[in-house]
């Protein structure tokens, strides 16, 4: 069949954004096509084929579409364009550059270039003539903001090649040829700085994917101290609305120790994205002293944007993340919220009249979520360098019920679970991560335990377990007190409860809106936790349970003031003194 011949078709039916098309040639599953509606072309994807009828989901409103409209099939799946210029961009789910659109309202069928074709980049070559290279190998690099953006052998090159030519250092556009490669048959292929990749195909140009070992610091105490996530790890944050999912994700995006942050706003509120647009260009990354925006790309398909593009948006984000991972960078991908993506799948499955699974979600939901989470990970690249994609998704369980299909499917796929609790949110105990239900399976990894022992302290993992135990005993004591009454239980129970409250108020609770408290480096987390554990280990002398509450409140208050002060500053030490003095009043040696 002639490769240049494009299959065309004509519309035979329309139900919302599901359109049926009678085609005149071969079409493939997930192929991209354009539907003509007047002067505009609506982008769509093939999702089912029966005989010569293709079912396509249109990524735009189909208002006004008529039977007989022509459809042109593009012979490729949904792709993103990869190359320098992605950072600091605001894309929609299909990688259109939103800043390149002039109108206030999104225009149907307007597609913009994700990169700049005429911008000059300062290229410095690293490959030399005669090098044997395969897909993903580095040929050179350009400076993208302050990141070394590696120019790689395109991922679709599936053979071994010999470098025949590399251009000298200098300024080039992404369309210029920067290298010529020859395959075994002697064919020469030109390489530019840009390439396309189908978003649903994982980029696998690495040597292997070992167990993750390094902890990714987020500055959020309830995560770093109690349930750390690793570089290349996966985690998810389920929670009813109003429990602070987005605030927590934004805090992680601002503070995490990653080179690149990709934020996918998937079917969520536009104003939340606007908040990132407004704040990130102003905020400074505390670790590098650079603008946060320099290392961030935002993919936004807010809830009022076309539903079908929502599904695309998470894949677009993941593909860009994998691209930067191949450059040996630590990438953090955040998606808010994966439930909206699942709902988009549900809407389409419903229109296709598929037999529904639980809560009308498609039956393969669990498989789809698992294979998506599996794309994250820490990798050894072919050149011995390492890179990682850490993925944290939020889940918005219907009715706050964690037994619903999206939460359950995600639980099977993700290794860290940060459950947000309505009770904690009601009591304004933010971040509302429930300390007992939440877990990080990475704490069981020997590699991670060794890493923490070296990095934080030899006894750190035991201290974490001890902390968790105190919290659990505090909760049990509280239940007993509620059942038996304040004076119906031994004083020891009150003490247990207040020790857990101390951990809650000083470690777990954190003010995301206070400049100092919002971000706690590991050194400081270690200091505070060990201080608290020493208090929990101490014996106290109380005559009645009524003395415990005000006494611990004083300690909590002074330690909260410590949290609000610069580490080791005069103020910090002053409040530390207060704590020590208070302790002396009742501590029994």
């Amino acid at each position, binding site marked *: 069949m002639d490769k240049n011949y494009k299959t065309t078709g004509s519309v035979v039916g329309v139900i919302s954004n599901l359109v049926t098309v009678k085609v005149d040639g071969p079409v493939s599953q997930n192929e991209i096509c354009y539907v003509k509606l007047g002067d505009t072309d609506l982008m769509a994807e093939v999702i089912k084929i029966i005989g010569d009828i293709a079912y396509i989901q249109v990524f735009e409103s189909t208002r006004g579409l008529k039977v007989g409209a022509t459809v042109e099939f593009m012979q490729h799946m949904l792709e993103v364009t990869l190359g320098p210029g992605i950072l600091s961009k605001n894309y929609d789910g299909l990688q259109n550059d939103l800043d390149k659109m002039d109108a206030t309202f999104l225009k149907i069928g307007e597609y913009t270039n994700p990169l700049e074709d005429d911008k000059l980049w300062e290229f410095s070559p690293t490959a030399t003539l005669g090098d044997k290279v395969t897909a993903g190998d580095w040929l050179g690099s350009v400076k993208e903001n302050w990141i070394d953006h590696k120019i790689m052998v395109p991922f679709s090159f599936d053979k071994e090649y010999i470098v025949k030519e590399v251009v000298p250092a200098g300024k080039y556009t992404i369309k210029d040829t920067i290298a010529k490669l020859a395959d075994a048959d002697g064919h020469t292929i030109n390489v530019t700085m840009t390439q396309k990749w189908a978003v649903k195909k994982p980029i696998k140009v690495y040597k292997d994917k070992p167990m993750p070992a390094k902890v990714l610091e987020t500055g959020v105490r309830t995560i770093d101290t109690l349930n750390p996530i690793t570089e290349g790890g996966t985690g998810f944050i389920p929670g009813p609305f109003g429990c602070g999912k987005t605030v927590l994700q934004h805090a992680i995006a601002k503070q995490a120790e990653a080179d690149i942050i990709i934020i996918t706003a998937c079917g969520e509120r*536009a104003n939340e994205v606007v908040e990132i647009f407004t704040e990130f260009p102003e905020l400074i990354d505390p670790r590098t002293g650079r603008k946060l925006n320099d290392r961030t790309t935002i993919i936004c398909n807010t809830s009022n944007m076309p539903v079908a593009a929502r599904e695309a948006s998470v894949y677009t984000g993941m593909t860009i993340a994998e691209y930067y991972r191949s450059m040996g960078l630590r990438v953090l991908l955040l998606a808010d919220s994966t439930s909206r993506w699942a709902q988009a799948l549900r809407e389409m499955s419903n229109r296709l009249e598929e037999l529904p699974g639980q809560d009308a979600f498609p039956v393969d939901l669990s498989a789809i979520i698992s294979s998506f989470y599996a794309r994250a990970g820490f990798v050894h690249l072919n050149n011995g360098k390492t890179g990682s994609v850490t993925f944290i998704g939020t889940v918005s369980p219907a009715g706050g019920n964690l037994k619903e299909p999206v939460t359950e499917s995600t639980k099977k796929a993700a290794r860290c679970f940060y459950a947000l609790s309505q009770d904690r949110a009601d009591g304004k105990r933010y971040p509302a991560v429930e300390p007992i239900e939440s877990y990080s399976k990475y704490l069981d990894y020997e590699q991670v335990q060794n890493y923490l022992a070296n990095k934080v302290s030899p006894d750190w993992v035991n201290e974490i377990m001890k902390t968790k135990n105190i919290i659990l005993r505090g909760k049990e004591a509280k239940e007993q007190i509620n059942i038996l009454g304040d004076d119906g239980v031994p004083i020891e129970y009150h003490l247990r409860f207040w020790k857990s409250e101390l951990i809650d108020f000083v470690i777990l609770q954190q003010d995301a809106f206070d400049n100092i408290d919002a971000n706690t480096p590991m050194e400081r987390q270690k200091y505070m936790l060990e201080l608290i554990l020493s208090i929990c280990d101490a014996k106290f002398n109380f005559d009645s349970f009524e003395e415990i509450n005000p006494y611990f409140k004083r300690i909590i208050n002074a330690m909260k003031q410590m949290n609000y002060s610069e580490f080791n500053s005069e103020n910090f030490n002053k409040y530390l003194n207060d704590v020590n003095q208070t302790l002396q009043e009742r501590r029994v040696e």
Partner: protein
Amino acid sequence: MTTQAFQRIYTKITKITKATCTLKATGVGYDEMAVIDGKRAQVVKIDGDDVTLQVFAGTEGIPTNAEVVFLGKPPVLKVGPELAGRFFNAYGTPIDDGPEVSGEEREIGGPSVNPVKRMQPSKLIPTGIAGIDLNNTIVTGQKIPFFADPDQPYNQIMATVALRAEADKIILGGMGLTHDDYLYYKNTFDNAGALNRIISFINTTENAPVERLLIPDMALTAAEYFAHDCNEKVLVLLTDMTLYADALCIVSNRMDQIPSKDSMPGSLYSDLAKIYEKAVQFHEGGSITIIAVTTLSGGDITHAIPDNTGYITEGQLFLRKDTDISKVIVDPFRSLSRLKQLVIGKQTREDHPQVMNTAVRLFADAANAKTKLENGFDLSDYDERTIAFAHDYSEKLLAIDVNIDITTMLNTAWELFSKYFSKAEVGIKQSLVEKYWHNN
């Protein structure tokens, strides 16, 4: 009926259900409006030359040989300054005996604003109600619903908020409004001398329920005209969104769609988001703020309608009756304004965030103490004080009939802290305590 040249007339109807009619027709566009037997309808499905129409007023009495006229365009509203002060039905036709509005015809339910063209909402809307201004501050460009049981006075509160909000235009989208409530709004706005700033799109319980589906889009198309074209500050009131969702449910049911949670359509989230996300702050100064009502059944917010709404809107104002003071309060636990962080402590006094959180925490302590009491246990001295605090806090701040400015609210809160608690128990940043503590 007079017809125009471009309109096509069909008379062969092949299938009639309670809400839809199917006929053979060609050249019909998706979403296009039609008139069938004098009733308005919209194209909801095209399958070859079978076109399915959703008949808004129901299909009662439609014969198989009824006349169907396709109008060649989706539902539209004529927009212009003349809209001000007028009352319309769900189709945008005047119901106040006034003349037809002239102006540019706009498709309703148009495309959304490019997120990068939005501005971060930043202007506080004072309402004088402490349950809102102190704990759940609202800003322009926000979307926030009242969650209320049907017996609560949400329409009165919405009208109060609307009048105090000093908007350039107030657009009322009434869905399934009782005739009495409709008159209440009309009279309240009239008495306040505000009628010329009000535009109303009304579907009362006397009208067909499915017609309601057009109301929010009509109201928001008018809102976009005033906010975008005229740079005005527009407040949109939508009441009651639960009845809107019920209409969605009716339609999807009759289209044989598989229901998801609570027999609501699977697309409920997207359907509601399309409406609420029209709330926007433009760079040029215009804004659309949406205040809606979602009625609950027995306070259950896990039902699909309030649940999906909560995930879309920027918070919710939860009304409940406080038995301590026998008044309706804005519940501080279940209420939330997500955008308050943008203004509190910045456009209001520095102590606002901490005072707000501390008061709510102490109120939570009081709730725990009450549980203890109910379980028959003795209360500690601290418990007693939190209960006393909670009573005063409800009475002086949370009650819906409070009307004071924000600084007064903050001062009142400090007064209560100082009256009932020690500084350590309050646990606010030292520098603020030194500045605002009473009698120190």
